[in-house]
């Protein structure tokens, strides 16, 4: 079976900091949460996978195709940043179908195809609204729908609920879980909270100083806790 994401000795440099070399394989349908302290390299990892940063060495494969040298638009990766980054001059509907516009496809047809996702996320009543009129949780859901509307092979979420209040956080996490159950989209989700990770993922990776400090099944966290000091600190075990 083809892996949805493979990282092969991936290294990314940013100034004096170096992420990697990292290896990772995600099977289709996997949901991996990546945790790490601030400055551990999580955002660099996401940017390298999305093609927004060029790795200094190593290779990235998405859905069995090497994408290391490809521009972001050819990688078939869905990306949801922490800020949601909705286009403020476009309605919610046009935000969601932006990928169709970019590809020169029919936007109305793309919106119709996204109906199941919109129903799960409860976005139908918001389609004509502008991003400025949405709550934080609604904005993240729109960003999620926008990413999924491009039918990506891999979904990358960069701290999607970190800036939200508790009810919105619960609502978005529930939507992520629900969507994953229904669509089975391979997901790499960066966050800071183990509670959030437990709510959505079945695999966990912990990065410390640009290296994997721990990576395994979520259930193994309790049965075989990590030995790496940074990972233990992050999980509150020390």
């Amino acid at each position, binding site marked *: 079976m083809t892996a949805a994401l493979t990282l092969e000795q991936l290294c990314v440099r940013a100034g004096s900091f170096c992420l990697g070399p990292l290896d990772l394989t995600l099977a289709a349908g996997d949901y991996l949460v990546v945790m790490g302290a601030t400055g551990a390299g999580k955002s660099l990892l996401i940017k390298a996978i999305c093609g927004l940063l060029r790795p200094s060495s190593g290779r990235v494969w998405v859905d069995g195709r090497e994408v290391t040298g490809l*521009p972001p*638009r050819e990688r078939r990766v869905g990306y949801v*940043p922490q800020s949601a*980054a909705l286009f403020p001059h476009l309605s919610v509907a046009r935000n969601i179908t932006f990928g169709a516009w*970019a*590809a020169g496809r029919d936007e109305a047809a793309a919106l119709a195809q996204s109906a199941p996702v919109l129903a799960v996320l409860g976005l139908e009543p918001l389609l004509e609204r502008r991003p400025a009129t949405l709550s934080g949780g609604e904005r993240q859901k729109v960003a999620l729908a926008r990413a999924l509307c491009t039918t990506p092979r891999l979904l990358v979420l960069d701290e999607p609920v970190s800036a939200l209040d508790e009810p919105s956080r619960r609502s978005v996490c529930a939507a992520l879980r629900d969507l994953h159950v229904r669509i089975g989209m391979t997901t790499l989700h960066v966050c800071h909270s183990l509670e959030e990770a437990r709510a959505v993922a079945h695999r966990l990776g912990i990065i410390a100083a640009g290296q994997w400090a721990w990576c395994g099944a979520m259930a193994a966290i309790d049965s075989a806790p990590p030995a790496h000091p940074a990972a233990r600190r992050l999980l509150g075990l020390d």
Partner: protein
Amino acid sequence: MRRRRDVARESAAAMRPVAAAREPLMAACVVVAVLFAAMVLALVGADAWYLIRHGNGPADLLRSLSRPGIRQAVVLSLTTSLCSLALTLATSLPLGYLLSRQRFPGRALLSTLVDVPIVVPPVVIGISLLAFFGSGLGVAVRAGLGRVGLSMVSGLGIVLCQYLVSVPYAIRAAAAAFDEVDRELEAVAMVLGCSRWRAFRGVTLPLARNGLLAGGVMAWARALGVFGPIMAFVGTGPRVQVMPTCVWLELSVGNIDVALTLALVMLGLSGAALALVHALAPGRSWT
């Protein structure tokens, strides 16, 4: 408790302009603001007042403007300034975007060069143009233009002067407008399937539009008032008079009424441009 009341009172005062003006610092600022506004209004009003006092009604002003030489100057000013605006926009968009988005070797030098026409006296630009077209490459360019029937002592030279004076303002305004657009929006657009150009067209340009238009209008108003470089490089021949040079010529022969009428036209155009800038520029308003 008392201190908290004071803070609340100060906050309330900050929100009420009249109350704020009673604070010594704010009162001083308001006095300076009133004096400045009065100075500008007095200068503008003086033109109109002079004309009225000397018995020039609206009909006389229109008659002055309809004189062939004056009408030609107004038309030439408007056409050349619009041509220079087109050139300005064609330069300021790519340069503003480059300065806003990229860090590259020589960026500081480029940024400094952009500011050169702002800091040098305008007449120096005219003299530099004379020097350039008087030797080397400039002579070849002039000869080439001559072969197709074009001369620098024409609208072409005027457009060049206006462009060189006004383009730095538009580049700075464009860079500021692009700076206002979150780079993450472009990154997301590219991951969603856009090329860099399509992300620019679909996201960056619409979001920077008001700032770009405001910069363009400001540059146009600046181009309309260019005087020194045109005097030095193009001269004041009968076919190359624009409003600023016409004002100077009319003044020099004692036609103050005509000069002031033209000055009022330029003030009106500049005022309309400024109103447009305030309406368009992000974060600006009349209140």
